[in-house]
């Protein structure tokens, strides 16, 4: 371990010698302090937090990510090209220890820079929050600068699948046919069954039972927030639809909302009073549709209850933890590519991988459409290319790998006051550091072990 730490210390010294630590620290602090001066919020709590957190944390991630890749590629590739690695490699230290030492040095450097800039964002945000009007500060305390857990209706996928199969069997028994596109028929029945759960017809009420028994005790006296989202097939002239809500169940008197004017396709948060959870730990919420058109509440996002789960400080730290996991992966990619490539090629290669990661939405789009040629919404036809047979499976694999790292959105969660749980952080650690970084790092160490370090280098 001492040998590994010695290499890590040398990486730190190199970062200071090249003034990289200083430059990146100044850039990060400049971005954290300077950006909020350039960017104006609209004076509301949500606007203030979304703008400040999104811009500062995104800038920190981008700056730190680029410098990590650069340093990771440089610290190993340059050592090999300049033959300095030969001086180290002849010492009684294994190659893997050199590699791990450099990796530890890089990630500890990242941890220090991330902690420094994160602390500045945290202090700056609280300082600027103090300048908001009192009413907005209250919103900030209750809705934004908190870690809010979320509870949804129990999953009904299995019930829907059972009901779909029953209906399919019934119809096949009633109308036996020899040739039928069974998957398509099943899909159509499935949509019909799902619609029964999702649609609220005009003048009808849909009821949700949300199980909050695990958090019931801690929610005594705490207001809750209902997050609603619905779609509508028809457009309303005003752009909004009326919705009425009722929460709570007998014997307690229920709470009823005024008619709410809500826009479709948007999430709305509605505060409901404390102590409406029933003795069984369930919160009953009913939504009335008084419009002349049906409203569709999607099964997942249609309605959820948000409740205070913890403090913002700890949530913020967990968010930074996920960003740290990303930085660790970048450090691993940089070091692994520098294990077998020269500095410029390694940097280019790593940036290429990063570009693929960032364009994963394009890949996802191609996979969902099943073609590279795109879908023409005017003709309703999907394009076709012979390349699809090879590209789409490859895209699926790339997406599967990329999503292991991209499946987390700490900035979004923090700016909307959503809780980043310890479980999420552990999952990020497992998927990003242990699994992805482990495989890539293992590959890098293996290549570095087998590489002939004393061959004439291109720069000599």
């Amino acid at each position, binding site marked *: 371990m001492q040998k590994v730490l010695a290499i890590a210390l040398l990486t730190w010294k190199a970062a200071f010698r090249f003034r990289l630590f200083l430059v990146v620290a100044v850039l990060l602090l400049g971005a954290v302090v300077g950006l909020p001066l*350039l*960017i*104006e*919020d*609209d004076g*509301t709590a*949500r*606007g203030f937090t*979304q*703008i400040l957190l*999104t*811009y500062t944390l995104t800038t920190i991630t981008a700056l730190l990510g680029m410098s990590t890749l650069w340093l990771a590629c440089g610290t190993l590739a340059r050592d090999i090209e300049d033959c300095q690695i030969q001086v180290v490699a002849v010492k009684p230290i294994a190659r893997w220890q050199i590699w791990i030492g450099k990796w530890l040095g890089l990630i500890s450097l990242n941890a220090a820079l991330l902690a420094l800039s994160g602390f500045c964002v945290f202090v700056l945000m609280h300082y600027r929050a103090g300048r908001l009007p009192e009413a907005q500060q209250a919103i900030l305390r209750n809705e934004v600068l908190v870690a809010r857990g979320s509870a949804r209706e129990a999953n009904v996928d299995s019930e829907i699948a059972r009901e779909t199969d029953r209906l399919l069997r019934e119809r096949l028994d009633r109308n036996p046919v020899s040739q039928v596109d069974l998957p398509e028929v099943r899909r159509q029945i499935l949509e019909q069954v799902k619609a029964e759960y999702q649609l609220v017809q005009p003048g009808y009420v849909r009821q949700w039972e949300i199980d909050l028994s695990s958090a019931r005790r801690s929610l005594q006296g705490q207001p809750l927030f209902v997050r609603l989202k619905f779609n509508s097939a028809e457009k309303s*002239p*005003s*752009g*909004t639809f009326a919705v009425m809500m009722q929460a709570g169940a007998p014997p307690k008197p229920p709470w009823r909302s005024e008619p*709410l*004017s*809500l*826009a479709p396709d*948007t*999430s*709305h948060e*509605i505060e409901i009073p404390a102590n409406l959870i029933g003795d069984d730990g369930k919160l009953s919420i009913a939504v009335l549709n008084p419009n002349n058109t049906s409203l569709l509440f999607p099964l997942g996002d249609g309605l959820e209850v948000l409740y205070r789960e913890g403090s913002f400080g700890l949530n913020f730290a967990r968010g930074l933890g996920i960003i740290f996991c990303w930085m660790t992966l970048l450090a691993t990619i940089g070091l692994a590519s520098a294990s077998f490539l020269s500095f410029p090629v390694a940097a280019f290669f790593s940036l290429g991988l990063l570009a693929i990661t960032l364009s994963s939405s394009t890949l996802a789009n191609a996979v969902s459409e099943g073609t590279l040629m795109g879908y023409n919404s005017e003709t309703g036809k999907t394009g076709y290319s012979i390349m699809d047979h090879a590209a789409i499976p490859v895209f699926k694999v790339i997406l599967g790998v990329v999503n292991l790292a991209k499946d987390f959105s700490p900035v979004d969660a923090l700016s909307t006051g959503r809780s980043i749980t310890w479980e999420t952080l552990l999952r990020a650690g497992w998927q990003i550091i242990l699994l992805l970084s482990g495989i890539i790092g293992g590959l890098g160490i293996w290549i570095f072990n087998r590489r002939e370090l004393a061959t004439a280098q291109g720069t000599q």
Partner: protein
Amino acid sequence: MMNPTTKKILLLALAGVLLVSSGFLQHDLNRDRDKLGLTRIAPLENAPPVLAFTTVALGGFRGLISNALWIRANDLQDQDKFFEMAQLADWITKLEPHFVQVWLVQAWNMAYNISVKFKDFDDRWRWVRKGIVLLRDDGLRFNPNETLIYRELAWFFQHKMGANLDDAHMVYKQQWANEMAKVFATNTPNVSELISPQTEDQKGRAQLPLDTYKMDPAFMKEVDERFGPLEWRLPEAHAIQGGRSVRQPPS
């Protein structure tokens, strides 16, 4: 052989002289361009430093950047990230200050599309007001002769605030009346007292329409005499004024 330090100082001095000369030359060039009708649009005047920098330094690349920002802004709007989207809209208008459609689309988006996404009527008013302010304070500042902007502004007052299409229209009317109450202290709005204020209170209030609401009291009086008397605390009066400006932009 000249001493390197002396050479550097001389070169720096030369650079300084050339820079100052180009400044004078630029002034003459702009004047000649204007005189010869070579300028389609007037150079930006009184622009904030960020705007002046972006329009000059980025040159033709401004269009590309604003396109990219526009795509991003659309994505953000789909994701309900309105605050971030509004920031991008601000940058897009700064990159293309003379492109009228940019002002119109962004203002319409704020006043009509984004405002209704909020359930609280006060929040909606904030976005409607943002749309109006964007056109009135910035759009017209850089495009004072663009009739489409006056027309759009008039439409916002007449349709968004004046009509009963939006559930929150009464809040808009009330908020606007509150704002106008600061300009007209009495129950009967008197435009003449804003043109030639006598008391300290009147002098203070006379500055408000000019500084904050970009309304010229003399022009208001002209509109009032021709179409009025108008109740200036109602949005419709401002719609008429905006419509009148389409035909005859106030000087």
